[in-house]
């Protein structure tokens, strides 16, 4: 183990405390926040062209939110004690608030908004279906089977209020995840006031890209034509979000470089050494610059529909990959250098084991499985007035 050390590190720093599971946690949470904000664009900001993706975005947010805490809990030394965060929270701890923010977001925002949106359809489906499914939908109506115009008006009204509450909640959810890292003054790579804002905008970028990709995939699987104005608009919002995200992250780095505080030398060595490929290659070049160029071209040039689809598809994949490496660079990068500023340790991702690559892939695939189930249970395309 000692051979993985360069220079001097405090003896307790050799093994990284947080591995790939903690990289997944902000990644998945970010996808939730981003997907929800994407849905809100349609509902609150009245971007009606995005209507085909509204329910898909909401269900994506729900599927990923259900899975978000799982890698986190499985990473704990004592997962069985995780409930203590809820019953004896230390109110001064950023991490302690997670349980509450999470529950607020799940119960008050997402589940309620989806329920109000689907209530009428649950009622209708419970009448149409037979056997078990009839009962499933009946339970999902929670006994509220009134679908008179007046009642439906209330669904819309309450749904709107929840969306309005939901936007700051989505900001809170992911801004707070940034704060978990940004508030650690012991770590100069994390400790920046920009961290919550950067996390938030990168969350929007990743969430928009995910919903865009899912929309393309779901349309392909259902063999229906993609609504191009919708897809183009998603691409446009992705472009804007990317520009803001890129600017904020650049500002943060420029500020660091110009101030060149005590930790500057070690961080400079970090980014030009151990993080070089994941930061400049995966995150900045492939995850931001190339997608920005691609999306930028789409905004100004007239390109054939098929080519546009391919550009958006590739862009979406690159962006999702780039944001994953952004989380990687924050979480792993922040633990590679010693707090003594005198040296580095290494991180080698294993393949097997609870902290290995395969397990991480499984955690990452799980929300897609949940989403597939949700899309089967409550298909947006079978809603009244859809399509």
């Amino acid at each position: 183990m000692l051979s993985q050390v360069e220079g001097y590190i405090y003896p307790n720093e050799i093994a990284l405390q947080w591995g790939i599971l903690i990289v997944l946690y902000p990644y998945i949470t970010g996808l939730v926040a981003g997907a929800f904000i994407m849905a809100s664009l349609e509902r609150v900001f009245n971007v009606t062209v995005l209507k085909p993706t509204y329910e898909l975005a909401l269900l994506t947010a729900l599927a990923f939110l259900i899975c978000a805490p799982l890698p986190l809990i499985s990473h704990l030394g004592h997962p069985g004690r995780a409930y203590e965060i809820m019953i004896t929270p230390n109110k001064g701890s950023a991490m302690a608030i997670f349980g509450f923010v999470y529950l607020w977001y799940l119960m008050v925002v997402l589940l309620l908004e989806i329920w109000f949106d689907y209530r009428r359809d649950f009622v209708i489906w419970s009448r149409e279906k037979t056997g078990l499914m009839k009962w499933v939908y009946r339970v999902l109506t929670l006994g509220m089977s009134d679908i008179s115009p007046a009642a439906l008006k209330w669904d819309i009204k309450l749904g709107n209020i929840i969306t309005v509450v939901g936007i700051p909640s989505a900001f809170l959810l992911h801004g707070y995840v940034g704060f978990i890292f940004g508030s650690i003054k012991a770590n100069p790579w994390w400790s920046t006031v920009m961290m919550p804002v950067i996390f938030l905008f990168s969350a929007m970028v990743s969430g928009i890209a995910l919903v865009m990709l899912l929309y393309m995939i779901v349309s392909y699987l259902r063999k229906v034509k993609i609504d191009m104005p919708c897809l183009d608009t998603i691409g446009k919002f992705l472009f804007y979000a990317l520009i803001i995200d890129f600017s904020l992250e650049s500002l943060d780095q420029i500020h660091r470089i110009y101030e060149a505080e005590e930790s500057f030398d070690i961080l400079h060595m970090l980014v030009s050494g151990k993080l070089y490929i994941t930061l400049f290659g995966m995150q900045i070049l492939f995850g931001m610059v190339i997608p920005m160029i691609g999306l930028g071209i789409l905004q100004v040039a007239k390109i054939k529909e098929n080519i546009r689809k391919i550009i958006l598809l590739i862009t979406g994949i690159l962006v999702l990959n780039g944001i994953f490496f952004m989380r990687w660079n924050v979480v792993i990068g922040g633990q590679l250098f010693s707090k003594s500023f005198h040296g580095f340790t290494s991180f080698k991702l294993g393949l097997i084991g609870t902290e290995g690559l395969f397990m991480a892939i499984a955690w990452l695939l799980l929300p897609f499985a949940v989403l597939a189930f949700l899309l089967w249970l409550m298909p947006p395309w079978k809603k009244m007035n859809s399509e």
Partner: protein
Amino acid sequence: MGNKGIKSSRRKFVKKTAAIAGTLVASSLIEPFKLLVYATEEPKDEGPWWGVGIDISKCIGCGLCAKSCKIENNVPEDPFFFRSWVEQYTVYNDGTVKVVSPNGGIDGFNQEEDKENIFKTFFVPKMCNQCAKSPCTQVCPVGATFETPEGITLVDSEHCIGCSYCVQACPYGCRYIHPESIVADKCTLCYHRLTKGIAPACMEVCPTGARIYGNLRDPESELVKYMKNNSYQVLKPNLNTGSKLYYNALSAEVI
């Protein structure tokens, strides 16, 4: 679907947003300072409030402190887990600095560099700084890390969930996750001895008396006298951790 309600009345939307923002601000005022301003005050009750003094000029790098700590406190023997360790600093004539701590200094040190090239060299014993505003206590999500009335930061191993957030938050690298119990572990200043009036193991074995502890409230204590007579300094003062580990003869190279 369902965007007509908002569209029809922008004013309504603004009102709603204002109401929500107002509620958030109001609710944040309930306990604002406890949540946002973290400053542990000196406990009001009577009794000792412990601090530590380390005189670098007295340390000979024998490593007995680190060794005795491992024995006394059941610290794993591997060289990746230490509650207390010793660093050797070598400052060269060209200004470069080399730091080493082979096996935490337990086996002693050799100075392999040519004397001619060395500007100065010294040993720095490290241990928990028993911060009065300890970042590790601040971040513990479940309150398993806490500060005793005597000013010692301890971990409740029955309560710790093993999230490692405290390990990340300690600027001095003084915490680790114990490989057997899989909970956070750290120097307790030998709390089990201290409460019986016995000196911590590392201090009892130190042959030169480089480490002392004392009651910061008692003007006659050895520590207070040491602080009066020496120009002491704490590590990373810019982080405002309220460190109660006071070094004498601390050189600027030490981080």
